């Protein structure tokens, strides 16, 4: 088996490892944390200040 054949098998193997790692980690996170917490983010995050009404800020 030549270098390029080994490289192709290595690419398949490495891809499988990384994809499997992500899927397993995602399952572990789901089992360890509350779904409500995982999906509790709000648009812009918690410290959105850029939309503050200028008249309210400077009465």
């Amino acid at each position: 088996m030549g270098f390029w054949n080994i490289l192709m098998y290595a690419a398949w193997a490495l891809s499988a490892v990384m994809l499997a790692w992500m899927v397993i980690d995602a399952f572990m996170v789901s089992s360890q944390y509350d779904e409500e917490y995982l999906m509790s983010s709000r648009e812009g995050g918690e410290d959105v200040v850029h939309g503050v009404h200028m008249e309210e800020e400077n009465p």
Partner: protein
Amino acid sequence: MANAAAATTSSKRITMLKVLNPFHIWALGVGIVLVGEFMGWNFTVGKGGAYASLIACWVIGLLYTCVAMIDSEVTSTVAAAGGQYTQAKHIIGPLMAFNVGLYLVMAYTMLCAADALVVGDLMKSGAAVMGFADLDTKPFVVLTVAFLAWLNYRGVFATLTLNLVITFLAFMSLVVLFFAVDPMNQGVVLQHKALLTDLPYGWIGVIASLQFGMWYYLGIEGTCQAAEEVRSAGRAIPIGTLGGMMTLLVAASITWFVASGLMPWQYLGQAVTPMYDAATLLGSSKLQLMLFVATAFAAIASANGCINDASRAWFSLARDRYMPVFFGAIHPRYRTPYRSIIFLVPIAISFAFTGLLDQVITFSILSGLLGYTFMTFNMIKFRKMWPLGSIHRGYIHPFHPLPAITLLALCCATYFATFLGYGATLLSIMAFYILASLWFVFRRYQFVKRADQFTMPWPRPKGY
């Protein structure tokens, strides 16, 4: 007491990490685009000759400058993941937002697939040069998507820092190539006088070239997707986006200047890797190797940015329940939209395995173009609903409404150009989005919690 309860609830919310700076934004925008300078832009030459390509480079450059200015202003105010999707939701309404979100997901996922195909093809070319002719590209296509998805999964800072490094190196390779052709001395290496001809297909060729002119800049608007993860959106988004646009105008002009001075338009118009060919013509193996590596870097940076942007757009759609809310989760340790990242991996790989690079790219370009058209109406409505002085803006673009009107006119010209070359594809994509809209209105929107979509602390818009 109420304040204490609110603080407790607030502390339990999960957020994305705000760790990015203007350089990361530059890397995200330029990283997605730069592969277009290494390949693809040259199809403009095939459509209308070398001069048509230069006209397309600058006319479409104007289109994207308008896009960058408009995006910078709106995003510096609507600093949320989802970028143009979130803008559309707040400024126009849910149906427009759904469509824009879908444009973004489709455009970036397909572009990611195309980039992975390019990496696979480069591996095949490299193997052929070293004497192995039958390299299967599929494992390298999958590896590219899997590795970049894994990187994106584990955190945005490392993802975009990698983009910063490889995008900068790819850009510098174009600068090195520019100086290698002795640009100040015409006739020594560059042969513009001999190679530049009149417009071979007249002005209709120039119009036709506009479609492929988008390759020079397609994706710079992706900077908006990082708005929720930058330390200061009002500063980082305008600096990163407009700095990226300037970089791309320089890169596009260098690219055209070098390639059109080395190759006749008949060859350049159909070359697969024109910049690598340019380095080959110079007879330097070091330059050849540099351009080979830079092309790979540019394709990887583009795929990396596309995974980042597509996942943020999909995540934002899910967070508002426009798509299954399951995908609106954030990883508690890495603070990334991890379920959206995983979900898009098989889709990108499926598109890549079709091998239809042409169709995939055309779908991506048209989805982008539909998004730019929306921006014109969005911008005009944004200034009407929240005039200057009513809310904070990190950046105010000049000459409003001229950029919006210019953008709309140039989008119309590009639709016509696309119709000339890919009429059937254009109509089928329009049909796809119309069907998706019908599904959203009659089926999906009943699941959306209307009030939960709008959580930005904005003042009531003027006239409402």
